């Protein structure tokens, strides 16, 4: 009987005291779809939120869908959370971050350092650590303000775009990992607005586009890389999944181009430590299949295929070399994780020697690229 009475009291207190304490009806929250951060007035942070207006988003249920489906609202503050509280003062519904999958940071702020932003985004329970982190030249608020083309909300389009395997999929959690791991520097996708049509006189609208990557050193932005260079980074990070390589056939062989689709690509980074000198071997193996041929070469000839393979190999190594050079000389930022591979193979040496001055060592390390390409298929027609 005593036990029963105790259980009853427990049950009632459980429900009476703890019940409903964070209950919010779904129509009392402001669903944030994208978060943008910029630097304004030297040291002030501007938080821009894209908030969905459900009644405008879903047609049919509650009549008219006139007006914009999202509102953009921003406020400044010394920290992210301060700006967030300031915005709350302007919104009649509770700001709800958990549905946001896009964290967009402007250039000025990124150059000053982003650690506190990533910290807020991971420490506070609401924002998702699997939201995409992206950087933009200029102001983040400009992109957040852009109009959607297919989806109801432009943030959805950003997310879908980031999910496609054209570029990198970098979540906040990956960014934080790269930031905290030694021997690798963080990078993230770069996002811009591009005109919809090119080389026409039409006044076309603007569309969001993934446009290369932002390179970091520590938590500070040091530079950008364009799309072509990003391809090189994909090779080095062993994340190449799809892509097309076009090789030029020299004039003496008849000229023209052959385009090949990447079927499979694999990259191995092997650090070699010999007599105190560090060297990195990068082995790249690619399988290709021809999808376009406007040269005069006969692809049925194995000799020709071998020739094409060497062209492809050259092209791939050149791409990789280019980006390695840029990272080593221009940015001095080890976004490839070379340091990690050194640590994995030579942990003792890493801890005693390289850990402290990897910054300098990275810039000086020799990188040898061994590219191997195989053309597996030549297409359906002669």
């Amino acid at each position, binding site marked *: *009987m005593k036990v*029963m009475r105790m259980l009853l009291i427990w049950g009632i207190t*459980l*429900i009476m005291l*703890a*019940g*409903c304490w*964070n*209950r*919010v*009806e*779904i*129509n009392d*929250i402001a*669903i944030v*779809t994208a978060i943008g951060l910029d630097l304004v007035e030297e040291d002030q942070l501007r938080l821009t939120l894209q908030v*969905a207006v*459900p*009644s405008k*988003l*879903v047609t049919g*249920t*509650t009549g008219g869908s006139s007006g914009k489906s999202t509102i953009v609202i921003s406020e400044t503050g010394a920290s992210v959370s301060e700006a967030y509280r300031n915005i709350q003062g302007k919104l009649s519904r509770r700001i*709800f971050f*958990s*549905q946001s*999958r896009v964290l967009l940071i402007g250039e000025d702020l990124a150059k000053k350092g982003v650690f506190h932003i990533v910290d807020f985004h991971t420490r506070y329970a*609401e924002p*998702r650590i699997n939201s995409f982190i992206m950087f933009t030249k200029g102001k983040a608020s400009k992109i957040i303000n852009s109009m959607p083309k297919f989806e*109801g*909300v432009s943030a*959805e389009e950003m997310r879908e775009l980031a999910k496609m395997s054209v570029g990198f999929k970098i979540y906040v959690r990956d960014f934080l990992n790269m930031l905290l791991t030694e021997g690798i520097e963080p990078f993230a996708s770069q996002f811009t607005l591009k005109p919809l049509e090119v080389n026409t006189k039409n006044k076309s609208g603007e569309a969001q586009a993934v446009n290369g990557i932002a390179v970091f050193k520590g938590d500070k932005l040091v530079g950008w890389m364009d799309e072509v260079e990003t391809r090189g980074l994909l090779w080095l990070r062993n994340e190449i999944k799809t892509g097309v390589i076009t090789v030029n056939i020299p004039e003496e062989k008849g000229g023209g181009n052959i385009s090949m689709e990447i079927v499979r690509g694999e990259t191995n980074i092997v650090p070699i430590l010999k007599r105190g000198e560090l060297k990195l071997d990068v082995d790249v193996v690619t399988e290709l299949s021809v999808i376009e041929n406007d040269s005069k070469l006969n692809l049925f000839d194995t000799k020709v295929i071998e020739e094409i393979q060497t062209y492809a190999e050259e092209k791939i190594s050149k791409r990789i070399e280019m980006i390695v050079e840029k990272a080593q000389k221009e940015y001095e930022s080890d976004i490839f994780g070379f340091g990690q591979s050194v640590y994995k193979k030579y942990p003792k040496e890493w801890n005693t020697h390289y850990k402290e001055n990897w910054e300098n060592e990275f810039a000086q390390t020799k990188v040898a690229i061994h590219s191997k390409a195989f053309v597996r298929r030549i297409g359906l027609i002669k």
Partner: protein
Amino acid sequence: MKIFRQMKRLSAKNKPHMKEQSVQEQGNNEGLTGNLEEDFQRIKQLFEGAADFAYREIEINAAYSALILYLNGLVNVERMELHVIHPLVKANEKLPRRAEITIDDMKGILSSAQVKQGTTFQEVIDQILAGGTILLMNGSKSALFISEQSWEQRSVDEPVSEAVVLGPREGFTENIRTNGSMIRRRLKTTKLKFEYMKLGSLSQTEVMITYLEDIAQHSIVEEVRSRLNRIEIDAIEDSGYIVEFIEDQPFSLFPQVLQTERPDRVVGNLLEGKVGILVANSPFALIVPVTFFEMMNSPEDYYGRFIITSFIRFIRYLFLAVALLFPSIYIAVTTFHHELLPTNLIFSVAASREKVPFPAVVEALLMEITFEALREAGLRLPRPIGSTVSIVGALVVGQAAVEAGIVSAPLVIVVATTGIASFMFPSYPLTGAIRLLRFFMIFLAATLGFYGILLGIFFISVHLVKLRSFGVPYMAPIAPFHFNNLKDIFIRAPWWKINERPHETGKRNLKRLSSRKPKY
């Protein structure tokens, strides 16, 4: 549970009190006197005011007067005329030529199949009430009981509450003898036992315990017997009365006795070592002990193809969860865990809730209760009006309420799905338990979110695991776990693979297949 036990104790205190009040026929244990006039007067007095009481005097050999007593409507008059009155009237030629003619001589004359003899008033009265025809003779201290009962009854019909596509279509009727014969027809063995008993001080309802000797455990049969004997009530109108008297946990929401209209289901269970209880005037037989998983099985499971049946069982368990949890999950997600919904879904849910004036809980309760009302109304009304109710319900509750912005469309979907899901279970009493627990879960989800739902599942699980039906754990063979019996729980193995009876009830004689060798 303590509070329940206290209530039980209280009701136990009331029992002797009830006994005093109960009307019973007593003091008729004296023997017949042999004086026809005197005996007749006494019986007639007992039946005073009973218009269906009938009698006929017959002179045998112009020397002996005999009397036939019966109740109109319970006796097949044509057969009685043919097999009782006619031979008696024409007795002259057949009777031995001697001075004394005893009632024993009459046995030779009557051409009825069943003739018994009795000597006390009580026996005579019981026999009349049970539909027997009584023959009294002057100078005889014993009476003959001739069985020529027959009364109007429903014919064997398709069971309404347990319809199947495949499998036998006959269901029990109100006649206990017909019901017994349906079982006997399926098990032509002397091992099949029927034990008669009478329950109800006024109704004197016939109750039959049936089981297979050598398979059913003695302890369970004995337990059924003793629990039935403990019943003290004036009348039993349906087997449902008995269920409440013999359940292990009468306050549990979950049924611990299986009620079925299907003789094939009873036989299937007898073969698993269960005990069946047939009750006169009830088309529902009872089966004990029963487990939760047996409640989830339909008799059709055993007639269809096993792979398809296994799939259907999977669907059934899935929708068990839906029926129990769907509204509460909806409430928890829309009021506590907004991050769980896909972005596009949360937009449409939020948009549809935009104009709804109530919180999600109130909305859900409103709809659930309306649905229950619709269900009950549809059930009670005569069939032609019943369809009107569903049309009005669908239009008013479904469409108009959404359009008026009183409830949100996703919630209507939730409630409708839940409604369909709750009618998927082959056991009607279980449906009730799930429906009621749904409200409990809604309440928990509305106050504590997913934490509350988990808490609720936890409480229900604890209760289920603790529950027993006639000593057999309710969740067997999951808790206690018995691997070999899993062949007929979530899946239905082919018959040639189910080589053992359920361990809990059939352990006296586990083997089902004569050869243990599997087919493949």
